């Protein structure tokens, strides 16, 4: 079983490495990677801690705006701009998380949603975000002044490297003692409390980690596409990242990656063909997922395998 998992990862890594040479549009590939990163970061909360945040676009979008503003208006370097964006996402996550972890389940979802809407309105009205117009013409700059990122392929490999680092980091977090405590909280919160764990502190930590990594994804997306719009901080984006995670399989490592690829590809191609009906299709996928497909793609595959040969962890 372990050998099979390694084969899957090696095959995916090889595919990712040669993808720009397969005639696929590099900017589209980078967009896929950014949303896959966003979904993986989100999954750290939903999948491994069972906290449904309905406002993750706040961190993704706020970080995208801050990075875009720092690089464009303040003349910061690319790396500094990304770090600045992530720092803001981290702070937002800390403040919103501290309020939201006071309640559980459905309340947690509503509170994160409402506070994310607050962030949305701030982005709508603040000066540095460009309001309804958003930010445009964000330069990609270069890596520490050495490697220029203007070239799409160079940028692609940079984004891929960051994505792989985030993916490995999330695996590492989940398999760490900290991750085990998160799993314990997921399985039975009162018991975790009774064992003496400061549950709220662990949940807040997971929330901040997830928010920061979502912010990183947002920053990269701003640099890749060169623009940030209000839709990056909107509740629609918050909903989409939930769908990506759910569709691919929450609580699995590869699930969010696959879910993000499916959803972004669908949106990209369907919006040309069917126009506004694309949100109907996304909504219908949501309904199907919730009604009959709660494990998601990877979750279902894992279950099939697990029935045959013990446990697996894709």
């Amino acid at each position, binding site marked *: 079983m372990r050998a099979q998992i390694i084969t899957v990862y090696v095959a995916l890594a090889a595919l990712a490495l040669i993808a720009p040479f397969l005639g696929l549009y590099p900017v589209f590939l980078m967009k896929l990677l950014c949303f896959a990163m966003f979904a993986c970061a989100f999954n750290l909360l939903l999948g491994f801690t069972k906290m449904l945040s309905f406002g993750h676009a706040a961190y993704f979008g706020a970080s995208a705006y801050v990075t875009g503003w720092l690089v464009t208006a303040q003349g910061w370097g690319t790396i500094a701009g990304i770090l600045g964006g992530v720092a803001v996402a981290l702070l937002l996550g800390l403040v919103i998380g501290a*309020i939201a972890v006071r309640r559980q*389940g459905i309340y947690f*979802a509503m509170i994160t949603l409402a506070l994310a809407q607050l962030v949305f309105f701030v982005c709508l009205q603040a000066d540095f975000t460009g309001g309804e117009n958003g930010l445009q013409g964000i330069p990609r700059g270069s890596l520490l002044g050495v490697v220029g990122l203007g070239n799409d392929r160079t940028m692609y490999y940079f984004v891929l490297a960051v994505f792989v680092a985030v993916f490995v980091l999330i695996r590492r977090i989940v398999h760490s003692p900290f991750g085990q405590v998160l799993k314990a909280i997921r399985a039975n919160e009162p018991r975790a409390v009774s064992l003496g764990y400061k549950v709220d502190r662990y949940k807040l930590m997971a929330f901040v980690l997830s928010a920061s990594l979502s912010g990183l994804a947002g920053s990269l997306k701003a640099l890749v596409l060169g623009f940030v719009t209000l839709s990056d901080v909107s509740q629609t984006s918050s909903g989409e990242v939930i769908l990506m995670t759910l569709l691919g399989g929450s609580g699995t490592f590869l699930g969010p990656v696959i879910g993000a690829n499916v959803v972004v590809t669908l949106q990209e191609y369907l919006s040309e063909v069917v126009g506004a009906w694309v949100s109907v299709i996304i909504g219908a996928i949501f309904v199907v997922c*919730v009604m009959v497909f709660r494990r998601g793609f990877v979750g279902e595959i894992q279950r099939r395998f697990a029935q045959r040969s013990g446990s697996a962890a894709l």
Partner: protein
Amino acid sequence: MTTVFGVPLPAILGQLMLGLVNGSFYALLSLGLAVIFGLLGVVNFAHGAFYMLGAFAAYIGLASFGINYWWALLLAPLAVGLLGMVIERLFLRHLYQVEPVYGLLLTFGIALIAEGVMRSLFGASGKSYPVPPLLQGGFNLGFMVLPIYRAWVILASVTVCGVTWFLIERTRLGSRLRAATENAKLVQAFGINVPLLVMCTYGAGVALAALAGVLAAPVVQVSPLMGSSLVIVVFAVVVIGGMGSILGAIVSGLVLGLVEGLTKVIYPEASNIVVFVIMAVVLIWRPAGLFGKEQ
């Protein structure tokens, strides 16, 4: 001229009036949300979409079938309520066994579908719905002009909220509803058809949202996305009031509408976010909400 915070008094009263009108919509919507949550344990994300469908039902009724405002007040909630019952029967009913967040996600998907369909059919731009002839014009109160339609919205929604509260807290049907909220299995064992009760409750909650939509049609632009950000404000209102509380939902809806109106006078930039800020403060100070009980 009398001024408060450097703003002329009539302007303040005008904004408070608008705030109270918004508060009436919040109250109707959060009431429906609270009733649904109480019995079904589902946070109905599609509530904003049903509000939008109510307004569109009135618009379509007038534009295509010549159905006037007064009939729309009756027929739109009925039609949308029936749609809600179908959704409960086909989808929501199968989710009561799994975690409550799935209900939220399902209704989110339904909201996306409803908004997408309406946008494809009617476009994203707003449609205007005329104020019915009987309610046009305004009273001159001496210090300000009170538009009759706005007064009617406040009166109608406070009445409907009051009647709903009475139905739930003071009648036999309401006592069954409250009993089923406490212990559905036991109530079922007493021979009450709980699944039917649940289906009708969802339909009624949704009908309240549609009623709010019809009331709102003449004062806002009827558009496919009119409910999508409203529903989040209403969520915040419900969290502030305390989730299960009927009275909490009504009172906090009206009060927060007023607070929003007041903020528009004092510090207009914050009027969109004031409800969320209040929610954050309430959560820090009283996590269960103002009228809620700590579990």
